[in-house]
């Protein structure tokens, strides 16, 4: 008698979202199985990886985090190029830290001009994160959307306080967006429902907030896991957006990651691998070595 393993067929499918356009286009999501249940179907797209670039030279990074990038840490365009050409990043995540109103408060125009320069220099899609300041992000991300018209950047974070304003401009100029809620499945769903009233669901990526190992990673894991179950098993249309795990910054701000090179790299790699297991579709990392490690695991 031949043994046939029991195979579950699920009702739901995660939406496929395209980042970038033309030759740059990169698809994420699209799976109709739970994370790693490869025996039950196929993933439409493998998990993707973006490396971080900052718009301002990092002031407090340990040497082992600066070392791989060398001089380009003061030059976002070449930093981004290096991540793609030397380290094989599949996307770049530009963090607009300088626009923080409590910090340098760089103008929206200046930030948008830089985003355009970085985007023009790349042949991979660009993700752009504001600082999370609900007011400043409206100004900055709206300007970015306008200046990079129809480039289909992935812009975020959209919060419950500002999703309408940023969503409207992003849609007008042909971009995709990141809906962010604070590690809470109910608030995640609420934001998606509200955003979807004025924004197409197939251009939304969920950011559940990804905490680092030892700092609440298990909460992020649980939320991602539940969102995937609701999307795939229970066919909940408001949970069927792909998930971004923006974890680099969260890992490298821990004292453990700052304590030593190897430990830091492992801290980021373990966090990334865990959230990958939970079901994240695209992960944002900082150190090229941790990216390499995780990529090796994924490639088997």
């Amino acid at each position: 008698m031949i043994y046939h393993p029991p195979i579950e067929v699920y009702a739901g499918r995660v939406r496929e979202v395209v980042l970038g356009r033309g030759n740059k286009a990169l698809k994420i999501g699209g799976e109709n199985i739970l994370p790693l249940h490869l025996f039950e179907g196929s993933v439409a797209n493998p998990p993707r990886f973006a490396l971080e670039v900052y718009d301002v030279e990092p002031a407090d990074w340990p040497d082992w985090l600066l070392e791989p990038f060398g001089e380009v840490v003061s030059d976002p365009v070449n930093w981004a190029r290096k991540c793609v050409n030397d380290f094989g990043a599949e996307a770049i995540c530009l963090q607009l830290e300088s626009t923080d109103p409590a910090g340098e408060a760089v103008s929206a125009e200046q930030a948008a001009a830089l985003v355009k320069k970085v985007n023009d220099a790349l042949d991979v899609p660009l993700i752009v994160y504001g600082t999370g300041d609900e007011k400043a992000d409206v100004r900055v991300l709206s300007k970015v959307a306008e200046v990079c018209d129809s480039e289909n950047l992935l812009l975020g974070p959209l919060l419950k306080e500002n999703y309408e304003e940023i969503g409207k401009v992003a849609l007008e100029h042909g971009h995709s967006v990141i809906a962010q809620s604070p590690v809470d499945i109910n608030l995640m769903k609420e934001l998606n429902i509200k955003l979807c009233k004025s924004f197409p669901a197939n251009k939304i990526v969920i950011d559940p907030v990804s905490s680092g190992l030892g700092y609440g990673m298990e909460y992020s894991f649980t939320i991602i896991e539940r969102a995937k179950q609701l999307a795939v098993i229970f066919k909940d249309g408001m949970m069927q957006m792909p998930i971004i795990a923006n974890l680099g910054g969260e890992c490298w701000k821990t004292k453990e990651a700052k304590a030593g090179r190897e430990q830091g790299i492992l801290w980021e790699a373990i966090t990334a691998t865990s959230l990958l297991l939970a079901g994240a579709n695209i992960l944002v990392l900082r150190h090229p070595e941790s990216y390499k490690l995780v990529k090796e695991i994924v490639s088997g």
Partner: protein
Amino acid sequence: MIIIGENIHIISKAVSEAMYKREPQHIQELALAQVDVDYIDLNLGPARKNPAEVMQWLVNTVQEASDLPLSLDTMNHIAMEAGLKLCKKRPLLNSASGRTDSKELMLPLAKKYSIDVVISVLTDIGCPPDVDSRIESIIDTVTYANELGIPNEDIWVDPILLPVSVDQRQVMEVLEFVKILPELLPGVKSVIGLSNVSNGTPQPLRGILNRTYMVMLAKSGQYSVIADALDEELIRLNRGELPNIVDLIYGVMDEENLELSGLSQKERDYVKTARVLMGGEIYSHAWLEV
């Protein structure tokens, strides 16, 4: 269903001020406003200062205005006994539980005054996490109460309902609990803090959650709820004046395939709410907007 009006509650700022200053007017207005209920609940909260005196003042104040029986709601056994002594009609002791202090101090009061008593599933380690542990806890405590001489007929069991925004799964589990209760402990009654289901939900949306869950509880055999007596639609539902709404909610519970398109906005909202409470949809504050 028996309704215990919850509106005289320390959590209301006006109530707490009136209690503190011993001003009867607002309290008596609230007592009179709760016309369609079977009991008036007097919730004192922790009552740290002069608990016995506050409870006695409250009982007298309410009894001057209303003839309804009272449900005395405090964790403080001294306040409880002081209040019980003054009740003109057979009151409800709200509440005892499986906590050691409650077994030792509250349950004996129910026996001493030969009154009805609410017993919740709480234990020394908190609220049991699932149906099985709720059952285990309540059987223990009811057995203990029986040994003290309190008959099942005087016991109102409270499974402790958590907000749907906190733990959606247990909202359904509580319905299960209510259904099997008569087999577990024949003769006991059931009671529940209904408004708990909507705690944390934006104020304008709380009512429909409360009302929908009340209907679901009724179908499961619930005996009584502690509820917002000023919610007119809740009272009407309980009186059987809105049978179409009740049918729709029952339909969701029976997994009938309901077509939303022919329904009014209000009917659709009840169907959506029942679906969320049955766990068919993950809860969010925007559940009516889908």
